[in-house]
C-alpha cells in the first residue's frame, strides 16, 4: 500500500524528538493551535483518498502569515518534514501526513479579504471555500470560474496547489488561468508574492510554476483571483447514445465544428444509471452513454449554437437530443453528473476514481481498451468524464472488505493510467499526482525529467522537507517500479506509437 512510506525508495529524515518539536512550535502558535494527541489528530489522517492513512507527529493550526513563516522556519532548522493541508478534499493523497512530520492545517485562513467589482478580482485567504467566492461575487454579477465537483467544500489554497479544474474549464480554464497572484511562504520562512495585479509580472512566470505544485514548493497564504461576468444565458443539451463509441465520435464532431461549449461531459451506462437512481436527474436509463453539452453567452447566439449542436449530435447518431426546458431541469441534469461519484455507492461498497487525460481522438480506442483491462483484472468500471478536454474519470468498483480487492483496484488503476500515457496523454488531468500516482510518474517522465523536477524543487526547498514522498518520485522508486513493469523485456502497449 502506498500509504506506507518506504525509506528505501522514499525520502527519509532524521527523527526529531517530539517533545523538543512541541517545545519549539507551541510558543509560535495560538493557544490550542498545536495538536499532539491521537484523538485530536485522527480526523487528519487522510484526505479525500481515504484508503491511504497515516499520522503525523503533530498538527499545527496557524492563524496568521507570521505564524506560518515562523513554524516553517523552525521546521526547516530542525529538519522536520511539513505537509500543508487545506480542506482535505484532494483525491490523490496529496495531504496525507508524513510520519514523524508536521501537518500544517490552513483552515483558519478562511476570510475573503476583499472583492473589487471594478477590477473584477477577489483577494482571499487560502482556506476560503471555492463556492463561497462565487457566492460573494454574485451580487456584482461576477463569478469565479473553476468549479471542481467538490466546490462546496474544497478551498482555494488546495485549488492552487492542485491547479484544480472542473466541468467548466473547457471554456473558462483551470485555476492557473484564473488567478493573478499568490502570496506564498517558503520553507525558510520567506514571504514571496508571485504574479501581481498587473499582467505578466517581471521575471520568470513563478505564479504559473507554483500553481499545481502540490505543496512541494511553498505554502499559499493569500490569493488574488480573477472574476468573470456571469453569462447572460446558459442552456444545456442532454444527448443519449446506444453506443459509447458513437458518443465519443459526437464529442469530436462538436469540437471540430468550432463550438466552444462551457462544458461537455460524458457518462457511460453504468455511471448514468447509478446517477439516475441516486439523483433522479431524468436520464434515459437504457442509454449506453449520455452527453451533457452546456452553451452559454448572449441569448440569441446561444439559441443558434444549441440548434447547431443538436444537429451535430443527431448526425453523430444520438438516439435522443433533449434541451433542458428550464433552469430547474438544467440543474437536475447537472445534479446527476455532480452526484455521480457518491452514486457509485449503489454499485459497489467502494470505488476508486482515476484521473487520466487523453487526446480526444483516442477516446474510442481507450474506452475499448479500458473495458478489456477491467475484465482482465476482474473488476467493474463505470465511466464519468470531462469529454471535451479528454479528462477521464473511470470509477473502479471494488470491495475493500474482500481480501486483495483494493490491490486489484490499484493495479487496474495503474494500468489505465499507463494506457493514457501510451496514447500521448497524462496520468492526471486535475486530481494531482499526490501519493497515489507517484509510481506512474516514472512512466510519464524520463529519469532526466524527474531529475529536473527535483532540481526545481530544490531551488525552493533545498532540504526537500515540503510534502516529501509525493508528486515527484525518487529515482530509487522509479528504478524499482520501472523494473516491475518491464514485462519479459517489453514495455506495455509496445505496439503503439510513442511520442
Amino acid at each position, binding site marked *: 500500500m502506498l500509504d506506507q512510506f518506504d525509506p528505501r525508495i522514499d525520502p527519509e529524515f532524521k527523527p526529531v524528538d517530539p517533545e523538543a518539536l512541541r517545545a519549539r512550535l507551541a510558543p509560535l502558535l495560538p493557544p490550542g493551535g498545536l495538536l499532539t494527541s491521537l484523538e485530536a489528530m485522527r480526523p487528519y489522517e487522510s484526505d479525500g483518498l481515504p484508503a491511504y492513512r497515516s499520522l503525523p507527529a503533530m498538527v499545527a493550526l496557524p492563524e496568521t502569515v507570521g505564524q506560518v513563516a515562523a513554524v516553517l522556519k523552525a521546521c526547516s532548522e530542525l529538519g522536520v518534514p511539513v505537509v500543508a493541508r487545506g480542506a482535505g478534499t484532494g483525491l490523490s493523497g496529496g495531504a496525507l501526513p508524513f510520519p514523524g512530520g508536521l501537518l500544517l492545517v490552513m483552515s483558519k485562513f478562511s476570510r475573503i479579504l476583499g472583492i473589487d467589482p471594478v477590477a473584477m478580482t477577489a483577494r482571499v485567504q487560502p482556506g476560503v471555500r471555492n463556492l463561497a467566492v462565487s457566492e460573494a461575487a454574485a451580487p456584482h454579477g461576477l463569478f469565479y470560474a473553476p468549479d471542481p465537483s467538490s466546490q462546496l467544500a474544497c478551498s482555494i489554497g488546495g485549488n492552487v496547489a492542485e491547479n484544480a479544474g472542473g466541468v467548466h474549464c473547457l471554456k473558462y480554464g483551470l485555476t492557473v488561468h484564473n488567478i493573478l497572484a499568490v502570496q506564498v511562504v517558503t520553507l525558510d520562512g520567506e514571504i514571496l508574492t508571485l504574479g501581481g495585479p498587473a499582467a505578466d509580472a517581471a521575471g520568470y*512566470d513563478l505564479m504559473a510554476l507554483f500553481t499545481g505544485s502540490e505543496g512541494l514548493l511553498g505554502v499559499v497564504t493569500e490569493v488574488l483571483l480573477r472574476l468573470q461576468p456571469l453569462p447572460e444565458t446558459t442552456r444545456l443539451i442532454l444527448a443519449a447514445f446506444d453506443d459509447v463509441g458513437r458518443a465519443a465520435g459526437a464529442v469530436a464532431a462538436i469540437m471540430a465544428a468550432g463550438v466552444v461549449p462551457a462544458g461537455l461531459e460524458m457518462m457511460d451506462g453504468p455511471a448514468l444509471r447509478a446517477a439516475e437512481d441516486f439523483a433522479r436527474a431524468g436520464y434515459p436509463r437504457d442509454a449506453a452513454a449520455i452527453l451533457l453539452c452546456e452553451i452559454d453567452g448572449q441569448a440569441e447566439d446561444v439559441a443558434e449554437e444549441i440548434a447547431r449542436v443538436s444537429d451535430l449530435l443527431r448526425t453523430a447518431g444520438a438516439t435522443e437530443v433533449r434541451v433542458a426546458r428550464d433552469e430547474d431541469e438544467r440543474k437536475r441534469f447537472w445534479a446527476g453528473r455532480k452526484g455521480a461519484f457518491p452514486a457509485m455507492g449503489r454499485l459497489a461498497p467502494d470505488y476508486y476514481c482515476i484521473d487520466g487525460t487523453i487526446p480526444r481522438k483516442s477516446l474510442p480506442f481507450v474506452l475499448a481498451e479500458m473495458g478489456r483491462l477491467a475484465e482482465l483484472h476482474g473488476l467493474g468500471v463505470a465511466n464519468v468524464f470531462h469529454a471535451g478536454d479528454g479528462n477521464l474519470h473511470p470509477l473502479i468498483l471494488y470491495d475493500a472488505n474482500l481480501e486483495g480487492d483494493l490491490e486489484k483496484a490499484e493495479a487496474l488503476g495503474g494500468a489505465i493510467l499507463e494506457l493514457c500515457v501510451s496514447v500521448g496523454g497524462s496520468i492526471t488531468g486535475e486530481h494531482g499526482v499526490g501519493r497515489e500516482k507517484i509510481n506512474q*510518474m516514472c512512466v510519464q517522465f524520463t529519469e532526466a525529467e524527474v531529475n529536473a*523536477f527535483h532540481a*526545481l*524543487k530544490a531551488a525552493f526547498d533545498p532540504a526537500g522537507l515540503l510534502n516529501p514522498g509525493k508528486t515527484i518520485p525518487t529515482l530509487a522508486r522509479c528504478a524499482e517500479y520501472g523494473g516491475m513493469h518491464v514485462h519479459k523485456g517489453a514495455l506495455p502497449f509496445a505496439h503503439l506509437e510513442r511520442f
Partner: protein
Amino acid sequence: MPISSGSDADLTAALADAVRAAAADRRALEIRGAGTRAGQGRPVAGERLEVAGHRGVVDYDPAELVLTARAGTPLTEIEALLAANGQMLAFEPPRLGRGGTLGGAVATGLSGPRRPFTGALRDYVLGVRILDGRGQVLRFGGTVFKNVAGFDAFRLMAGAHGELGVLLDISLRVVPRPAVEAARTLDLAPEPARQRVAELMRRPLPLSGAFHDGERLHLRLSGGRAGVAATADLVGGAEADPGDWTAIRDLAHPVLSGGGGLWRIALPRTGPAGDFEALPWDQAGGVRWLRAPAPPTGAEAAAAALGGHLQRIRGAAGPAFQSLPAPLLALHRRLKAALDPEGILNPGRMYVEA
C-alpha cells in the same frame, strides 16, 4: 496531420551536440531565432546558437485544437495554416519583423490585444521539448489541455527569454476563429475611455480588444453574429475595419511605431496610472506604451509604486526589465542553476549575473 515544406528540418541532434560542447567548456551561448525581438532583454556575451533552422509543423489535428511546431517555425506560416482551418492563436503574439518565429514569441512571452479577454500566451502553451543547459532533451507538459503531472515547467519557459532551456518544440492550444468580427472607434479621452471599457468588461460582452491611441478609443468585438451586432449598437461610435487591429497587435500603429525605443508599462487594468496617464494604452488599460529613447528617470519606481512594471520592447538604452526584489532575484538564480548549472544559456539576458 504532419505537414512539411521543403525547408523543414529537425535539428535536435545538432543543437544538443552544440549545447553539450558549450557546457563542457562553459562557453556562453546566445540563442537566436529570426532576431526580430533583439530589443528585448539585455545583450548576451556569447557564441550564437542559431535555432531558426529547426523548423516545421510537427503535428496539427484541427479537431483536437492542438498544434505542435518546432521553435524555428515562422509565426506567419503557423497562422496561415490555422486560418486555412478556421482556427487561430488566441494570444495574438506581436510580430515585430519578417520571419519572427514561434520560439521567439514563446521565449519572450508577449501577448497581444486579446490578453485581458482570452488570456496570455503562457495559458495556451500545453507542452514543450527543450534542451537544458547540459544538452539533455526534456519534455514537459504534452498535447492535452488538462495535465497536472509534475511541475508546469512548460509554462515557466514562456517569457524566460531562453535562460532556462533552448526551446525545441512547442505544443499550443489553438481556438476556433470567431464567426464575426467588428471594430468601432469612439471619441473619448483616455481616462473616460478606460472607465467605459471597465464597465463594459463587467458584462458578458464579446469584447476582444480595447486600445486607446491618445485621441480615440478603438474597440474590437469577436463572437456570434447576434452578440457582436447587439454589442456594436450598445457601444456606439463609428464603424471601423477590424483589419486595423493588425497594426495594433504588431506594434505598428502610428503611435507605437517609428525609430527609437518602445517601452511596455504593465499596470493594474483599472488602477491609477499616475505619470503614465497620458500615454496610449492597450489591453483595456493594462498596458501603457511609452515611445522614447529611454524611460524618464524614476519611471521604474513609479511603475512599481502603481503595482506594475516596465519592459523594453525596442531600443537599446535603459533597463531591459523591471528589477526584482532581492529574495525573488535569488530564487531566479537558483532556478536558472537548476536547469542550466553551467550558466551557459543566454546568461544575463534578463538580469545581471550574480
